[in-house]
C-alpha cells in the first residue's frame, strides 16, 4: 500500500515506542539513555587522540569510521599522486618548508596538516593561494577550539545546577520543571528529524517537484565544489522545514565524483531508502517529459510571472566565483528546453555593484514561497544587503565615519545610529541554523 521508503519509517516509529515504554530497575528510560550517552562520550573522547594510530578500520566505532574514511581516502589519493609523479614528492617537501617558515614568522597557519588538506594543497597552483588556504584552515581550527571551550563551560554550568538540586532540603521531593518532572515528554532531535522527513515524504506523494542538475561538476574548482555542496545541504534543510515542501530530485549525479562526495559528507545517509531525496544518474530529459521541464537561469530572456504547478523546475547546481558565464542558459539552449528567470527586476531595486545571482538555498526558499504565497512574497529571500536602500545606508555610515572621525577623532559619534544600519532579519519564516543560535536555544533549555 505504501512505498518501500515509507514502510521503513513506520517500522522505526513503532520500535521507538516500544523501547521508551520499558522501565528497567526503577530507572526511567530517559535517564538510561542519558547514562549510555555519557559513557559513549567518554569512550569517544579517549579514542579521539588515537584517531590516526588505528590500523584496523573495523575496530573503530561507527562515528569515527566515517571521519576516518575521509582521511584514509585522501591518503590513498595522495599516495597515488606521489607514486605516479616524482615532482609531487619534491613539491610536498617544499610546501612543508614553506609552512614551517610561515609558522615561524607568526602568520596564520594550522598546527598540523591532515591528509585531506594535503590532497587540496598539492593541487593549488600558486603560493598566494596556498597562504589563503592555510589562513582558512587556521580560522576553522580556532573556531573548533572555541566551540570545545564553550562545551566545557556549559558542562561545568550544568554540573553546578545539578549540585544545587542535590542540596535541596527534602531529597526525594518531587520537583516540577524543565529537566525534572514535567507534563510533556522531551522532544529529542531524532523525533524532530522523523517528523520533518515525513513532511517531505508526504510531498513525494502529493507535492510538486524540484530538480537539481549536477552536471557542472567539472567546471568548478575545489573551493566552489565545497560551497556548492554546502548550499545543497542548506537547501535540503530549508525544504524539509517548510509547510509545503518539494520532492527534491538530484539528476545527472556522478556517484564517484568530488561533488557528490562532498554532499555525502554533509548527508551520509543520502543513499538510504528512507532518506527523502531522490538521487538519479540519469538526465532530467530521461526522467521527465520534455515539454514539462523548465530551467531556472539568471540569463534567460523571460520572467517567471507565476509559479506553474504543472511544470517541473530545474536548478543548476553550479557555483561560480570570478568571471560569470551564462552556462546554465547555454545548457538549456543546447537541450532546447524552456527557461525562465526570477522577476527580481520587477519587485526589487538593486544597489550599485551587486550581482543578481543567488545561492542555491536562496533559490529553493524563493521557489518554496512562490508556490504558496506568490512571487512578491517570495522575493523577500533576496538578501537585504544587495538592495539599494541598504547600500545607501552603508554609504551614509561610511561618510559619517570619514567626516566626523577625521575632525573630532572620537569613535562614539560614528556608532550612534548603529541600530539603523544593521541588516534586519527578512521575515519570521526564516529559521536560523547557525551554531550560535542553536547554542543559545540549548542554554535556555538548560535553565
Amino acid at each position, binding site marked *: 500500500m505504501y512505498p518501500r521508503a515509507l514502510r521503513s519509517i513506520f517500522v522505526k516509529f513503532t520500535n521507538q515506542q516500544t523501547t521508551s515504554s520499558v522501565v528497567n530497575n526503577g530507572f526511567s528510560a530517559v535517564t538510561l539513555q542519558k547514562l549510555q550517552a555519557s559513557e559513549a562520550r567518554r569512550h569517544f573522547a579517549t579514542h579521539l587522540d588515537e584517531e590516526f594510530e588505528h590500523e584496523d578500520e573495523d575496530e573503530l566505532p561507527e562515528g569515527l569510521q566515517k571521519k576516518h574514511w575521509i582521511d584514509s581516502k585522501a591518503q590513498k589519493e595522495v599516495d597515488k599522486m606521489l607514486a605516479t609523479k616524482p615532482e609531487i614528492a619534491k613539491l610536498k617537501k617544499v610546501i612543508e618548508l614553506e609552512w614551517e*617558515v610561515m609558522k*615561524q*614568522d*607568526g602568520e*596564520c597557519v594550522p598546527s598540523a596538516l591532515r591528509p585531506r588538506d594535503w590532497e587540496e594543497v598539492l593541487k593549488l597552483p600558486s603560493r598566494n593561494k596556498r597562504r589563503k588556504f592555510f589562513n582558512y584552515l587556521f580560522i576553522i581550527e580556532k573556531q573548533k577550539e572555541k566551540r570545545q571551550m564553550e562545551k566545557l563551560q556549559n558542562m561545568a554550568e550544568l554540573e553546578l545546577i545539578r549540585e544545587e538540586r542535590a542540596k535541596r532540603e527534602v531529597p526525594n521531593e518531587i520537583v516540577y520543571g524543565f529537566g525534572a518532572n514535567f507534563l510533556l515528554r522531551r522532544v529529542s532531535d531524532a523525533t524532530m528529524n522523523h517528523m520533518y522527513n515525513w513532511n517531505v515524504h508526504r510531498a513525494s506523494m502529493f507535492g510538486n517537484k524540484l530538480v537539481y542538475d549536477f552536471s557542472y561538476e567539472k567546471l568548478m574548482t575545489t573551493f566552489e565544489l565545497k560551497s556548492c555542496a554546502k548550499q545543497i545541504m542548506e537547501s535540503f534543510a530549508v525544504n524539509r522545514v517548510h509547510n509545503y515542501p518539494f520532492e527534491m530530485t538530484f539528476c545527472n549525479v556522478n556517484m564517484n565524483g568530488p561533488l557528490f562526495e562532498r554532499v555525502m559528507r554533509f548527508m551520509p545517509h543520502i543513499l538510504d531508502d528512507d532518506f527523502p531525496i531522490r538521487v538519479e544518474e540519469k538526465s532530467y530529459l530521461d526522467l521527465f517529459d520534455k515539454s514539462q521541464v523548465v530551467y531556472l537561469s539568471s540569463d534567460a*530572456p523571460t520572467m517567471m510571472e507565476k509559479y506553474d504547478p504543472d511544470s517541473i523546475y530545474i536548478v543548476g547546481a553550479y557555483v561560480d566565483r570570478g568571471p560569470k558565464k551564462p552556462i546554465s542558459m547555454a545548457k538549456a539552449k543546447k537541450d532546447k528546453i524552456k527557461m525562465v528567470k526570477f522577476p527580481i527586476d520587477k519587485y526589487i531595486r538593486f544597489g*550599485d555593484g551587486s550581482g543578481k545571482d543567488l545561492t542555491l538555498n536562496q533559490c529553493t526558499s524563493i521557489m518554496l514561497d512562490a508556490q504558496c504565497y506568490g512571487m512578491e512574497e517570495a522575493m523577500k529571500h533576496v538578501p537585504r544587503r544587495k538592495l539599494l536602500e541598504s547600500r545607501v545606508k552603508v554609504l*551614509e555610515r561610511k561618510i559619517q*565615519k*570619514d567626516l566626523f572621525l577625521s575632525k573630532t577623532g572620537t569613535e562614539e559619534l560614528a556608532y550612534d545610529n548603529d541600530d539603523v544600519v544593521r541588516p534586519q532579519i527578512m521575515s519570521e519564516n526564516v529559521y536560523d541554523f547557525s551554531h550560535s543560535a542553536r547554542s543559545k536555544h540549548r542554554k535556555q533549555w538548560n535553565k
Partner: protein
Amino acid sequence: MSLFMRSSICFAQCTKRLLNNAVRASKRNYNRPAIRKVFRMDQIREKELLINKLMIDAQKNNDEKNIDNDTWTAIREEMQKEFPDLNDKIDSIIYDLCLNYGKPQQAINFYKYLRANNVELQLNIVGKYLRAYSQLKRPVTKDEERDILETYNALREDYPLLGAKSCEDCIVALCMTKHWELSFELLDMICEFQEPGPLVHSAIMTAAFKNNDPQKAWKLISGKTVPLTSSVHISYLDYCQRNFKGEKLINNVMKMLHFWRDQNLVLNQLVVDNYKTFFESLNYVTSKTSVSKNGICSACKTQLTQTTLSQDNFKILSDSVMKKLIVGKNVFCTTSPQELKRYMLFIKSMKSYDIVIDGLNVAFAKRKFQNKGSIKNIIEVVRYFQKYSPKKVLVVGRAHMNWWSKEEMESLRSVADVFLTKNLSADDPFLLHLTLLSGSNTYFVSRDLMRQHLHLLRDSKLKRLFKRWQMSRQYLFNTDTETKNIILHPPPEFELNTQEDMNGIHIPFTELESLILPRSYTVPENWLCVRKR
C-alpha cells in the same frame, strides 16, 4: 546631514566611488577583520619597551651606532617576560621591529649577536638576515660579501630544497654580490611550482647589468610581461656608459628604448630623470612636455607617428577572436551552431565598412534620462559620421531591436546596414570580429572597454596586440547632461608608446613612483621629448 543624504540617492551613488578611493588612500583601517599575523607590529610598537626607546632615539638623532651585546640580552629577556605565549617567536619579532623602524643595520647586528651566542637559528631568521642586505641602500663591503656566501652555503647544506620565500631571500642577497649567477639555480627551483614574486626578476637583471653580462638579463624576460623596478633601467644606463662610447653607446641605449616600445611600458619619474641627464650630456635638447590630441608635441612641434598594424597582425587577431571569443569552450554560451553557419555566409558576402557601431550600447546611451533604449540615438551617431563624406556604416545588435519600433528601424536600415544576432547570443565578439575583418581603416563605436574579452585571449603577446589595435580604433562616447546629446571621443591619432623618428625620441611617463607596468587605457599626460641640435 543624514536627511540630505537620503533625499539625494543619485548624489550618494556618485560620491561612492570617490569615497572608496579616499578610504583606500587613507591609512586608517576601520573594517579589516582579517589579521594576517599572530602578533601585530603596531601593537608592540605602542608598548613601553627598551627596544622601542632605543629605536626611536636612533631615528631622532639619525645615528647608526651599534647596540652592545649586553643590551641585546636585556632586550631579549624583557621581551620574553612581556610575551610569554610567543616565546619561540621572540627573535623574529625583534628582527621585524628593527626592519619596521627602518634600521636594517641593527637587524644584521642582532643576527650576528645571536650567532655568536650559539642560539638556535630558525630558517625564517636566516632568510630575513639575507634580505636585510638589500634594504641597506648602499653597496655591500667585501667582508659582508664573504659572510653572505658563507651563510648561503651553510643554508643549502642543511636544506637542499627551499621554499619560494627563502629562495627569494637568497636571490636578493646574492644579487648584491659577485656570486649573482648562483641565483639562476634558485630561480629554477621557484619556477618549477609557481611564478616568482615581483622583485626577483628585477634583482637578477640589475645584477647582470652591474656585472657586464646583459645577454643573460635579456634572455630572462624574453616573451614575458613582468613588473620591473626602476633600478633595472638605471643600472642598464650605467652599464652602457661604462663600456661604450660614441655611436655604439647610443645604439645600445636604443636597445632599451625598443624594449619599452615592445612591452608598452610607461616609465616613472626617477628613470626618466636619469635618461634625461644622459641625453643632455650627449648634447641633445630635452624637455618634459605634453602632447596635444592631434599628436603634435608642444616642444618640438612635430607629428608623432601613427599606429600601423600589418595584414598578418590583422589576420592573427581576427582568427583568435573567432577561435577564443565567438566559439570558445562552449559554443552555446555566445551563439548556437546554426547561427554560426549563417554568420559565416554573411562574412563571405560582406563588403568592408568604415564604421561599425555597437547598436545596443549606443541605444542605451541616454539611460539617465530615458529608461528604454531608442534607435534614434543610433541614427544620431550614424548622421554624425556621414555629415561630410558618405561612409559605409554597419550596426550590430540583437534581434529584439526589431520590435522596438518598425518605422525607426526602417529609417535606420535606409542609412546603414544592420546585422542582428539572436536574442540569446552575445553581440560584442561579433562586433570585434566584423571590425577586424573590414580592414585597417575601420573604426568601431562603443562605450565598453571590452576588458572581459581581452582577458579571454590569454596569451600576453596577443593581448598587447589587441590593446594596441583597440586604443587606435575605438570611438568612446558620453552624454552631455544639459543638452542630452551624445558626444563622441575619437581615438588618439598617434601611437602611445616610446617612439623614435629622424630627429629624436618621445617617451611617455607618469609622475608616480611605482613599479613599471604596461599602460592602462588612459592617454599618458607627460612625455619626454629628446631631439638633436
